[in-house]
């Protein structure tokens, strides 16, 4: 299975990185930029019996390590365990980022 996890700062928590990125975008002329929040995106490949079991594991991972509940919130989606589909999803992400 593949879990795609987004970790972002909670609303109200100051995000100096996001502010700097927003400033950079405005500098480039994107005058419509109202705000940016920076975060982390993680892909976790895992062996689990089914999606529910995977979700339980990912929930625990987020609570215990991947996010800091004092300042961050998280969201995730879990996709099929087909290894080829997982590899394709990762390749697609890499391509999008490149």
């Amino acid at each position, binding site marked *: 299975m593949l879990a795609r996890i987004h970790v972002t700062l909670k609303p*109200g*928590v*100051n*995000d*100096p*990185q996001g502010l*700097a990125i927003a400033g950079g975008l405005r500098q480039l002329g994107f005058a419509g930029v109202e705000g940016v929040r920076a975060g*982390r995106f993680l892909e976790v490949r895992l062996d689990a019996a089914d999606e529910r079991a995977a979700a339980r594991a990912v929930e625990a991972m987020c609570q*215990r*390590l*991947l996010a*800091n509940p*004092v*300042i961050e919130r998280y969201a995730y989606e879990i996709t099929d365990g087909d290894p080829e589909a997982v590899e394709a999803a990762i390749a697609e992400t890499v391509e999008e980022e490149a």
Partner: protein
Amino acid sequence: MKFAVVVFPGSNCEQDTRHVLADVAGQEADYVWYATAGEEALAGYDCVVLPGGFAYGDYLRVGAIAAIAPVMEAVRAHADAGGLVLGICNGFQVLLEAGLLPGAILRNRSLEFRSQWVHLRVEDARTPFTREYRPGQVLRVPIAHGDGNYFADPQTLSEIEAGGQVVFRYCEPGGAVTDAGNPNGSVNAIAGLRNRRGNVLGLMPHPERCSEPVLGGTDGLGMWRSLVSSLVEA
């Protein structure tokens, strides 16, 4: 007195810290490797110091991976038993991530790595870490961090303040707590705080870097003297 200086992969102030404890304060001080497992790993030590550095390269979040390193089981057991724990800079970040102190650390407000001398006001001079200072005394101590912007949500913050857990605040040379004296944007200018029980202290500035005249300042000495005098009495 016996001190343990915990060494994580990426710690870089462990030698300075051990040097000050052993050669300046004249105490017994050992390195303890992060992979040492078991609750008994720190048995026999009076005080455990988590030094500065960039444990695990600051990956994921500062202090996050170090906070779950094997040795932390023993650090937690030591703290739970009332033993003294001191976290300096990265060590403070590790204590926050481990939940041994409340709150969290964000990137500096300026986004800059700040390496400079700052002034700290001693808010609580009754702790085992600060008893040789005077309440309200202003110390000159260096900082060196990119992530030192202390944060706690409003409710946690009011509990910390009501409980008198703030031990050091950034201030101006005269002692006034102002935005200009705050190098990283920390909420309420918090530079260091303790747990409720008072046996765990974390701070961003580096007292070990200002405990000898040759280093340009000796205001950090009071912390080692405090620890030694409190341990002698204990």
